[in-house]
């Protein structure tokens, strides 16, 4: 059951990612990117990490995807234009792919049976965040608040 689900979700995600990379219209590419993220979230669900999957949907579909489509809408005049072929992009993609494949093939843990892990409940994540990781959490919070204030200052009207 879970193997079949994995194959279906993986094909779905890869197809969406491929579409995001190859579609002509930038807006379509952005929307396919959102679909690929839904597939990723489904994979997290399959692994029992529901919180991570939900956070992924929440942040990436609810905020980042909307941000991307708005950026495209507000900055591009030539949304429909052909973008041409980007050789540098291909080179970087190939390099990343080779690097990942190399490091995956070099690991020895592929043959080891995964140890039994406790279910990743929201409660456990919350406890970890509030005890061991409280300083990183506070720092991230501070950074985000600073970013929010910065964004406000950027769009604030100048007093005439």
């Amino acid at each position, binding site marked *: *059951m879970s193997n079949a689900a994995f194959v279906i979700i993986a094909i779905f995600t890869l197809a969406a990612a491929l579409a995001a990379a190859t579609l002509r*219209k930038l*807006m*379509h590419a952005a*929307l396919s990117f*959102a679909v690929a993220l839904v597939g990723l979230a489904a994979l997290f669900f399959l692994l029992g990490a*529901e*919180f991570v999957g*939900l*956070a992924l*949907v*929440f942040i990436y*579909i*609810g*905020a980042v*995807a*909307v941000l991307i*489509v*708005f950026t495209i*809408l507000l900055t591009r005049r030539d949304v429909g234009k052909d973008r041409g072929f980007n050789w540098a992009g291909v080179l970087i993609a190939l390099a990343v792919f080779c690097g990942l494949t190399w490091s995956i093939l070099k690991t020895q843990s592929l043959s080891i049976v995964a140890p039994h892990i406790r279910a990743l*409940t*929201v*409660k456990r994540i919350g406890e970890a965040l509030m005890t061991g990781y409280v300083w990183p959490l506070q720092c991230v919070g501070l950074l985000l608040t600073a970013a929010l204030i910065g964004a406000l200052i950027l769009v604030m009207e100048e007093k005439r």
Partner: protein
Amino acid sequence: MSKSIDQVFVNAKQWLLSWLAGSPDWVIQVASILINVFMLLAVFLTLFALISVLERKILARMQNRYGPNRVGPFGLFQPIADGIKMLIKEDIVPARADKIVHFLAPVLIAAVAILTLAVIPYGRNMTPFTIDGGILFFFAVGSATELAVFMAGWASNNKFSMLGAMRAIAQMFSYELPLIITVLPVVMVVGSLMPDRIVSAQAGYTFGLVPRWFVFTPWGGVAFILFFVSGLVESNRTPFDVPEGESEIVAGHMTEYSGFKYATFFMAEYIGMFAVSGLSATLFLGGWHAPVRVLEIVPSYVWFFLKLSGLLFVYIWIRGTLPRTRIDQMMNFAWKFMLPMAFTCVIAAAVWHYAGRGLRGWLWSLFVIVMVYSALSILLDTRRKFGPRVYRFAE
């Protein structure tokens, strides 16, 4: 006896699944999911049909008219006539529209609205989809609505559609903050993101009389009102129906939709309204718990749907009473009043918890809320600053 009536739907599902006994595990799982999905759709699409005619009746009553009364007894079959009309209408897609995205937007928005219904506990043991982070699921899935609205507005290739979508997204983003932050005190006090746990934490009665619903604590009462107002905005209802303000931008992101696609948007809006009302009943009004101990013999799902219909009536009532707000006033309200009050609820809930959850905690948290409320009303008082109106346009 009352227990078996209470569990009649659960038992019926078990009985249906017992036919499949002996088949592999995944068959039973899929069958169980399908039964849940089917029941959800059946119940809520019927409720949608019913509420669409009841809303027109109630609005008509408030405006001293008759309302629909031609199809069937008391006009009750009106939704069937409307449905047939919507189905056989011509589906017009603008020539310069993005055909695929234009088609996918109503599909996505309806799917998202129906998905959010899945995590609400409708009665004892009657949550269609039990998940550890149910509340988070609700908001995570619900946040895809914004993308769907954008798709509708962008794909229509129409200035009204785009403006409507921008307005809708702006207001949804602004009010999503108070909506989620007012849930936080409940989650903090209960210590769980599971809707079932939140409902069971509200069981019992203080002095054997007043139910322990969160709406009866100061922080819960304020959070409930804030949540309800944000819910009004999220489901684009009057007085916050700026995205589809007919007098300004035709119908907002739905301008270029006709026939059944328009009906799908309409349905998604109502189902979103049911979901938000259901969640506020779960979070603050004790879910499926009875208000008085004597009435506990009445099945739990009856109580849930009574609370839901009460909230839906208030939605309709507000629609019949209040005019539309202006978008800048609405935004000011969200960021300058709703958000600070939502944070105050979080602090007041903490005060309530640490002062012992009793009368002392009750009074202290009331004190915190009253202080912040009066400070905000003094700060936001604009009565002294009346002057010539300044018009601003998008540059």
